[in-house]
């Protein structure tokens, strides 16, 4: 089987949980060939992972790479105007997403012709958007109707143009598209689905939409620009949930968000992440002084501030306690790192009590370096840190977000997010109670071996691949039927090429999906 694995901002350019998962997937399914389609930032990113032998092509789709300055000719502007009008109309709340899929397909034609950037960066595009700005807010302001400024319109067009760049690549000709997240990575998968009927498997680690909302809080930009851009993402995400053959969240909790965005419950198949218990041997000793360990990126989503504040409270009770933070600072996160270091100083922890120690290899060393592993994230999927710490026989104190509770079960302590006192109380409790600590550590190891073994995780994925391939074969018989019953003129222009192409790659049976034929 030839599988296109689509990532966004993770594998193979960055480290992190999703990248670890991708690496494990490629490693544990050696009999299938994978092509990687990586959506990246600038396009200058280097591969930081060694590619296994079953990886074929690696294609990068940079969202923010500079493009040669191209002017939109009058002809292009005229041709694009009705497409833009329909696209923004489809974003309007009143339209309930009607026409959005068709608009994406029309935009894809411009993107593939290399015309989308120029078309969306013209003065006419700004003027048209200002004249017919969509209503993307469900509620009306009591104040006078807010008007879109030129800067707002430019802001919207720039963000959307960059976001739509994955449409520029030709739909992957593959047996299966597997995306590691919802969002922009689904655009090539949707294109392949619409063009060739390619099966589409959507794995979701963090909930894309939830994290998108958190990243664009009120006031981050003008309300009109924010609502328009977020509306586009919401419709895209809903579309991906609708068209994915299987949605495989890494935890059941994510499934709640998926259902809330219109996914049929029957298509949701949670597949828990897994770790190799052999790679995380049980720690046999404990450090001399009470030590808390954090492992992860120094990132606002990890809420390091709450951890530091909690540790300051722990130190009031246990003056010789230490907090060791292992993990890199991601690109662009330097300001947050500096902020955390400053907070640590302000809290009186800079005397060596709290130390930022960067990346550590092998990671098992980090878990062995403390009595207890603490995670204070405000948003998570099913974090590897928790599973790895549990496999190492360390008790975990973690915030009850996403799928953390599913991972921890009764083998650790859960606390509410953004509550330093609750974190501190749990830390003091475990640091002071060796028996409890040992019991939780043993239970944690046993839970991982039983429920979160990596072999089980990717065995399930292998099953899903085979299931989708089987379904796909079943639809092939429909091809001839569709070619007979669908007149040529009713086949949309973006599909004609595919129909005229290799019939083996065309699964017109999928053309019967609503919305595709219009």
């Amino acid at each position, binding site marked *: 089987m030839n599988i296109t694995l689509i990532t966004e*901002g993770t594998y193979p350019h960055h480290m992190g949980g999703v990248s670890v998962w991708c690496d494990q997937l490629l490693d544990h399914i050696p009999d299938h060939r994978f092509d990687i389609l990586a959506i990246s930032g*600038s396009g200058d990113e280097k591969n930081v992972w060694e590619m296994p032998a079953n990886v074929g092509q690696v294609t990068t789709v940079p969202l923010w790479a500079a493009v040669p300055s191209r002017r939109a000719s009058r002809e292009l502007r005229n041709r694009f105007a009705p497409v833009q009008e329909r696209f923004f109309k489809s974003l309007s709340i009143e339209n309930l997403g009607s026409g959005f899929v068709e608009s994406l397909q029309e935009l894809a034609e411009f993107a593939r012709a290399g015309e989308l950037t120029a078309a969306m960066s013209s003065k006419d595009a700004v003027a048209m958007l200002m004249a017919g700005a969509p209503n993307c807010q469900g509620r009306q302001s009591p104040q006078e109707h807010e008007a879109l400024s030129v*800067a707002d319109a430019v802001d919207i067009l720039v963000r959307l143009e960059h976001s739509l760049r994955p449409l520029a690549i030709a739909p992957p000709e593959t047996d299966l598209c597997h995306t590691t997240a919802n969002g922009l990575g689904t655009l090539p998968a949707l294109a392949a689905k619409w063009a060739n009927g390619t099966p589409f498997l959507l794995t979701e680690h963090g909930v894309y939409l939830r994290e998108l*909302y958190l990243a664009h809080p009120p006031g981050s930009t*003008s309300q009109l620009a*924010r609502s328009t851009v977020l509306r586009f993402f919401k419709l895209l995400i809903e579309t991906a949930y609708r068209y994915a053959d299987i949605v495989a969240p890494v935890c059941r909790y994510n499934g*709640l968000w998926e259902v809330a965005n219109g996914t049929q419950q029957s298509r949701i198949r949670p597949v828990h992440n897994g770790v190799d218990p052999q790679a995380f041997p049980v720690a046999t000793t404990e450090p001399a002084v009470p030590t808390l360990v954090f492992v992860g990126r120094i990132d606002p989503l990890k809420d390091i501030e709450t951890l530091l504040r909690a540790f300051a409270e722990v130190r009031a009770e246990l003056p010789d306690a230490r907090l060791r933070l292992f993990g890199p600072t991601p690109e662009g996160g330097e300001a947050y790192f500096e902020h955390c270091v400053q907070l640590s100083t302000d809290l009186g922890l800079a005397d060596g009590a709290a130390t930022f120690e960067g990346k550590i290899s092998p990671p098992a060393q980090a878990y062995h370096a403390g009595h207890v592993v603490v995670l204070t994230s405000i948003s998570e999927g099913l974090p590897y840190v928790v599973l790895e710490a549990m496999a190492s026989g360390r008790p975990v104190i973690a915030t009850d977000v996403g799928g953390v509770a599913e991972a921890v079960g009764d083998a650790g302590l859960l606390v509410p997010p953004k509550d330093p006192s609750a974190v501190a109380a749990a830390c003091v409790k475990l640091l002071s109670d060796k028996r409890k600590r040992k019991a939780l550590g043993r239970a944690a190891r046993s839970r991982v071996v039983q429920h979160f073994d990596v072999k089980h995780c990717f065995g399930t994925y292998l099953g899903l691949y085979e299931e989708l391939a089987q379904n796909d074969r079943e639809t092939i018989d429909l091809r001839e039927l569709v070619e007979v019953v669908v007149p040529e003129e009713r086949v949309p222009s973006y599909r004609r090429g595919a129909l005229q192409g290799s019939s083996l790659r065309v699964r017109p049976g999928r053309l019967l999906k609503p919305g595709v034929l219009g």
Partner: protein
Amino acid sequence: MSVEAGMVGTTARTSGPAPGGPGLSLTPPDEGGGSGTTLLANVVAAAVDPLEIAASLETFGLSNAAVQKRFSYDDVFGLAQELYTMAEFQPAPAAKRRRVRPGGPLDLGRGIIFAAPTLMFTGAALALRSSLSWWTVPLALICGWAFSQGVSYVGFSRDSWGEPPGAAVVWALLAALISTAALGLAGDSLLGGRFSGVVFAAASCGFMTAAAELVVHGEERIIGALLLPGAIGSLVFVTRVPFALPVVATVALSAVSVVATVFAALRHLPARWWRLPVLSPADLPTAVRYFATGLCCGFFVGLFIVLEPAKAGPHSWPAAAAYPMILSLGAMEWQLRSLRAAASDASFRANSVREFTRRVRKRLARSTFSYLVVLTVMTAAVQVLAHYRGVVVPAPLLAAGTCLALAFYFALVVSSCGRMELVLGAWLTGLTTLGVWALLARVVHPPWRLPNANFAFLIAASVSATFLALAARRAVVNPFSHA
């Protein structure tokens, strides 16, 4: 403007080159972010969708289980929906936008720093005049300008991606020195000259490249300080006040400035300095455009030296016609910044493209007029000074200087709008005009007469200036130019 469009957080890092948004609203209560309740209330009031409220509720610990237990809702989405329906919609004001700094007296200071090398090299060139051929200084200008443009583009481009901008400097310096020296040696053998001319050209080019690197790092003050020995030495040499400085001392002081500037630039070498800077495929043609534009700029300014015969003796004033432009660099920068600030402001205030266009065009006219006034004053001052020194500056050349100064001003406006291809097109049009004149000069014979070289230069500069003025008028009203 925030340019994050990609996913953030646990699954992705695809944010753009200059994120400006505040990102996650995780400001702790005691740091001005308000209490958790206040933060939540802000989200509820301005949420674009009930799910946005649900996302925030979860980050404050109100997960499904907590909501069911504490508030008897079915799930967190039910609570979010109710809050969304009940709360009065109150759009949050956009975070304070990053204002573009308008021009001011500070830019005049920067102008002095940019003008200082001219002073330094004038003194050094006068001191070495017996050793320099007519082509030496133009060669230094052409190469130096080209490499400095290339280095600054690569540096600023890398900086915008948060990468060390200094990676290009060592290679640019090497390329600058080697190519200038090679061209100098070729000039020596073809046109005649001395080896000291080659050294002068290479040193000048190296200085300009290094200075560009310092500009990328915002170290104009350091450039100013390092230029002091050379500039003061040249000033004393030319004016003989308070004493007559020997040639060796003048050249030595300029050499100190050059070497110090190169060392200052090399401070910014990254750890793996030998690695060539990585540019995205689209960056490379732009870098080449900047380089080519530098070549053209150097060529046009070099023409002042070629066309104006230097008078022998200590009172000569090489390239006097170029001085109004050089002395008005600060005003040029001032007006450009003011124009950019006004255009940015207009994009936030205007509620239609037409209104935006009207405002920006008006400001362009005002800025151009202001600069023209300064340029006229400078031209008059240079003319008076030349007269006082007994130097005659040909009128067509002085007019060409004015046209070229205006062309540079418009070129700055157009390039600041990201339309470097138009700038290059304008210079190439000017060069073509000169080329046509040179061609005609070979085929036209009496009784027909062509205008002389100074007039041809004036025509070429006028053509470029007109091209750039029209381009500026068009480019500046594109709203994307100010994004």
